[in-house]
């Protein structure tokens, strides 16, 4: 099998494993590498919002504040040969896979060294086996096609596709789920249910549940409520290993929180909803639980990101050789 010894790209799976807990549990101590990635993403997103507020960015962007732990936890279970399909809220996915804040910021700012020469911007990135695009739901059938290829040509590898709760309104999702189960495609659908789609709370846009929808196709489903990187890995490692050896789709729903606005300053949620999300934010919870490790790492990442911003901002504009 092609991925008998997967190279782990998101950190390690070995750390002290706490008992299963819910979203409010104390967060486990993380290896420095994982904490650094979490904080890199956090400070990247804060920097992006800051650049926007200063009028230094063009267009729009969607930050993943509060949801950083999902790719950091998950990608430790992936192999470089696995495909990742990201969506509009993809900075954390990109950084967890490549740890390349320079390339991503340059992409968002249209500067030299941009991953896609500034053509794609925040929502349209393709690098190695990572691809994002900006039309909700569209990438599921594409990911199914990639999974079809992997099943035949590179058994053991999987296609991973990230979607939000709101994207379950799109028909493309169901067409893809149907084919994925019918053809037993190694497709991992990661649902980041942050309970809102732009301005619309989930209960105003979704009838029934994601679990029941997966069940309707006979697709395996796992619900992750924990925000603990170690716990998430522990919960998912067997299920993901299993779809490698016995190809089939798997839906994993993360109950998570959008701590920031949908895109820039557009948060129309009531104050108590925003407060509730902020209270669940791993960032503060981790800092309170492991203050010494956190303080040093947080400071280092903040300073490093300030340096990234300064360096990238000083670069010349990106160039695109259009054929």
């Amino acid at each position, binding site marked *: 099998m092609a991925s008998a010894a997967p190279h782990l790209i998101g950190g390690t799976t070995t750390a002290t494993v706490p008992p299963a807990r819910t979203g409010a549990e104390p967060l486990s101590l993380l290896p420095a590498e994982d904490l650094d990635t979490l904080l890199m993403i956090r400070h990247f997103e804060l920097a992006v919002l800051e650049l926007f507020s200063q009028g230094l960015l063009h267009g729009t962007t969607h930050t993943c504040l509060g949801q950083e732990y999902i790719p950091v936890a998950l990608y430790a279970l992936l192999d470089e040969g696995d495909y990742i399909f990201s969506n509009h809220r993809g900075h954390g996915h990109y950084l967890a896979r490549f740890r390349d804040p320079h390339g991503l910021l340059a992409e968002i700012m249209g500067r030299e060294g*941009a*991953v*896609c*020469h*500034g*053509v*794609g911007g925040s929502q*349209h*990135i*393709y690098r190695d086996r990572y*691809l994002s*695009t900006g*039309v909700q739901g*569209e*990438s*599921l*059938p*594409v*990911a*199914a*096609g*990639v*999974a*079809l*290829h*992997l099943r*035949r*040509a590179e058994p053991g590898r999987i*296609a991973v596709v990230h979607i939000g709760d709101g994207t379950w309104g799109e*028909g*493309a999702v169901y*067409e*893809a789920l*149907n*084919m994925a189960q*019918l*053809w037993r495609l190694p497709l991992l659908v990661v649902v980041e249910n942050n309970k809102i789609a732009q301005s619309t709370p989930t209960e105003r846009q979704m009838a029934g549940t994601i679990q029941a929808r997966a069940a309707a196709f006979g697709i395996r489903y796992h619900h992750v409520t924990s925000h603990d990187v170690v716990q998430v890995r522990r919960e998912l490692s067997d299920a993901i290993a299993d779809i490698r050896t016995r190809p089939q789709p798997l839906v994993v729903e993360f109950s998570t929180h959008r701590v920031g606005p949908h895109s820039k300053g557009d948060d129309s949620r009531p104050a108590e909803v925003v407060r509730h999300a902020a209270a669940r934010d791993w960032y503060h919870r981790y800092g309170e639980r492991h203050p010494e490790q956190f303080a040093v790492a947080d400071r280092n990442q903040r300073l490093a990101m300030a340096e990234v911003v300064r360096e990238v901002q000083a670069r010349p504009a990106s160039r*695109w050789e*259009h*054929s």
Partner: protein
Amino acid sequence: MTRPERVIGNLNRALHKLLDDDPRAYVVGEDIADPYGGAFKATRGLSDRHPERVISSPISEGGIVGVAAGLALTGNHPVVEMMFSDFAALAFDQLLNFASKSVSMYGRTVAMGMVVRCPTGGNRGYGPTHSQSLQKHFIGIPALSLHEMSPFHDNADVLTAMLSREQPCMLFEDKTLYTRGMHQGGVVDDLFRYELLDDPSRTARVFPVDCGDPDWIILAPGGLTERAVAAMRTLLLEEEVTCELLVPSRLYPFTVEPLLETVSRARRICVAEDSAADGTWGEMLAQQLHQHLWRRLARPVLLLSAQPSVIPTAAHLEHAVLLQATALRRALTEASQ
């Protein structure tokens, strides 16, 4: 004399050859597996021979074009069959926003070799949602090229040409052509001959035996061939009006420049097509022709399309809406005065 190969047989043979020769080729579509072999039988025998790469799918046009895009992204050469081209509307997002854009939106060229086959057009009584010629809705999309089947172009060559572009392509197949014969050896019939030009659109040129510069040049996609030749025949025999017909294999991108020497031999030009009038391929061609030949033409390019109407089911009503050989001939006669 052996009977000529039918167009559907030629297409089926082309798909067999593709799967035989190219280990990365796939064929995906609804009801395409044997023994059924597709609604128009284009895929007959494929799944028996290549069960792993011939995939009969659910009714999911957007889904399967997305799957094809995923296959293309991983270096494969998928061919997707839309059961009727009308249903390509359900795959519009995948074609417009994913497959074609992926060629350039990531800042470098991404190979996306894939073909969406579209059984097209009317005159078979399938009614308003199964008879349209949707070419015009897909024109002008960067990195999406449109081709049309014809009795002059060998489908194996057309498939090779499309896949070697490494960009998404659509192949429009006029359904009335399937049962017709392929032309071979440069002969259309007793009056007309043809040759393939080597312009980028691989245009077939149909011309009367023994004729100098023609009165008219007609440009038309492959589906119009038979109607155009019928009109040309009557005009020649009854009115001594000589016409040549140009049938490009690739409809878009299309540039008339390589054909200027050929088209400027006539002072009258007609573009004929089966799309509902307005915003069409023919208008794009007419604009290009006017740009280059404005002063030489005896009259503006004559543009003939189907009526701007839904396509009715009843034979007499359908006949009146679509462009027929008689209407084509009548229009050419009137414009010859």
